[in-house]
């Protein structure tokens, strides 16, 4: 018998992975199991479920049939062994770090991150006793120097929000693994259609599914995907994975679940005790979005490139920071990490600075002025006065969100209409 596994293309998997016909009804579309709790067969069954000796539905905080389909769908598209869904991208970052960190521990993060992540890491995580060490990930020596005996992870975004930057995942994975820690990659902006970080050395992938995966801006959600190849026992750094867990009769997750240990921990401890579960309705909406992910991402990228090329020639524009442009210092990384395209968020500098930017966002008609990305509609925001407002000027500039910077998330409209709208608004803003 051949041991060759049947493989499927991305377009097939985005429709089918995780979603066989509903075993209870034959329903072909994944049903919304809007349900909190599940009946046990008998007392032995209940005991085995609570001891983690058998897997089954107990309570929707831990697992739900609709959410499980989304989890397997994203795990499959990313090439991981398992995935756990949660309420938002912010919750996903807690979920990704919770199995690894304890009070007094630290993780090393790229300074080029979504502003909300910089706030969460730098301020809220202090309440857990977690320290973040922001570094310029273009400087390998700085990354190495930031890692010490209490470091539990290296964190970056694949295509960084607000755009224009692509992390060198292979280099960062090498540094992290040499130090015995995993590389965690936020793949929200790229989606697994454009970039699969696990194939470039990452160990854990994090998503805000709210963005391109859902695609219609209907539903909040987060996801954490484990590749299942990191050796949690090698370094002694990860006692949650290797030491007896008091709340499960001394069960050791890595010993018991091996390459699935991280995912089991996320269900059995993080979801159980922190409780940031995803709503079944949101999982359903996100599954609908993922069914057309590849089609949408191709169009997002095509439109983004057209708009970026137009703006780069525009007299009111100082520069365009989009990795898909040949002028970008990170253009070569598109071919290496996301050859189908550099996604559709990017920034540009407006002549006239802060005031002109505010005028611009007040003058667009087709673009929506709001704080989100990855919608089917095109979006515009002035980061310095909104999403990155809480940061210091130094942090704003390091994150690519200085006072003259406007961020676009290019949608699926007719590209020429988007260009015309920006032209008329820039004329009003810069004069």
């Amino acid at each position, binding site marked *: *018998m*051949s*041991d*060759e*596994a*049947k493989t*499927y293309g991305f377009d*097939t*998997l985005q429709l*089918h*992975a*995780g979603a*066989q*016909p509903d*075993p209870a009804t*034959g329903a*072909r579309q994944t049903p919304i199991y809007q349900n909190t709790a599940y009946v046990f067969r008998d007392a032995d069954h209940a005991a*085995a479920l609570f*001891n983690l*000796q*058998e*897997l*089954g*539905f107990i309570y929707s905080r831990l*697992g739900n*049939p609709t*959410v*499980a389909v*989304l*989890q*397997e769908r994203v*795990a*499959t598209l990313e090439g*991981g*062994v*398992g*995935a*756990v*869904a949660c309420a938002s991208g912010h919750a996903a970052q807690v979920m990704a770090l919770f199995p690894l960190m304890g009070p007094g521990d630290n993780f090393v993060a790229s300074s080029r991150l979504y502003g909300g992540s910089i706030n969460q890491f730098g301020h809220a995580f202090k309440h857990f006793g977690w320290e973040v060490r922001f570094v310029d990930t273009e400087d390998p020596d700085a990354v190495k120097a930031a890692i010490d005996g209490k470091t539990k992870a290296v964190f970056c975004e694949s295509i960084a929000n607000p755009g224009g930057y692509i992390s060198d995942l292979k280099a960062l994975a090498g540094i992290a*693994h*040499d130090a*015995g820690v995993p590389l965690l990659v936020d793949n929200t902006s790229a989606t697994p259609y454009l970039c699969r970080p696990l194939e470039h050395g990452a160990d854990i992938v994090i998503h805000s599914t709210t963005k391109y995966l859902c695609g219609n801006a209907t539903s909040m959600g987060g996801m954490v995907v484990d590749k299942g*190849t990191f*050796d949690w*026992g*090698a370094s002694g750094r990860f006692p949650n994975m290797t030491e007896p867990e008091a709340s499960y*009769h*001394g*069960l050791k997750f*890595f*010993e*018991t*679940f*091996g390459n*699935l240990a991280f*995912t*089991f921990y996320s*269900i059995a401890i993080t979801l159980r005790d922190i409780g940031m579960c995803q709503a079944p309705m949101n999982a359903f909406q996100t599954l609908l979005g993922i069914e057309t992910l590849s089609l949408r991402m191709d169009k997002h990228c095509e439109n983004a490139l057209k708009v970026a090329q137009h703006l780069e020639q525009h007299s009111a524009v100082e520069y365009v920071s989009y990795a898909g442009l040949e002028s970008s210092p990170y253009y070569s990384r598109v071919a290496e990490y996301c050859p189908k395209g550099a996604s559709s968020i990017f920034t540009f500098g407006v002549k006239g600075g802060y005031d002109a930017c505010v005028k611009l966002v007040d003058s667009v008609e087709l673009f929506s002025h709001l704080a989100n990305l990855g919608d089917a509609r095109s979006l515009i925001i002035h980061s310095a006065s909104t999403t990155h407002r809480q940061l210091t000027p130094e942090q704003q500039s390091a994150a690519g969100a200085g006072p003259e910077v406007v961020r676009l998330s290019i949608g699926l409209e007719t590209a020429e209409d988007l260009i015309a709208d920006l032209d008329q608004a820039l004329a009003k803003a810069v004069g």
Partner: protein
Amino acid sequence: MPNEHGSGAPLPSYSDAYLKRILTETKTIAAVGVSRNEIRPSHYVARYLKTKGFTVIPVNPTQAGETVFGETILSEMSEIPADRDPIDMVDVFRNSEAAGQVVDDALEALLERGLRTIWMQIGVINHEAAARAEAKGVQVVMNRCPKIEYQRLFGELRIGGFNTGQISSRLR
């Protein structure tokens, strides 16, 4: 990166198709090191495999003569009665070092009795013993749990959001 199993060799990896073939062709398993303690993996993994239709023969010299899930625990693999043949697989619930002797005992007692696979549980890695088994034509799995792999490869882990690799539009 060095691993806790000392040799610095990479952790073993196996294709899904290889593991699925083993779990499909296996009918009878000698579970060496099985425990009567219900919270130990060596108990509930063996119990689970029995509920899935495998014939599971418990072997553990320290608990020989006791009964676990309806089977009498044997002291040695050589004590397995001939009417249980063929013994397709030995599942090793011992540490990496002790696994070496278990493999040699299995090859001695069961090679002529249908032995096709030696499976070492999560955390159990013994490359030298694996090489001795493979030299006799016995296939080896190390650092994996047959319960987890069965649940994953046959769709049960789907409910936990694990990647089962199962794609189908047929109703099952």
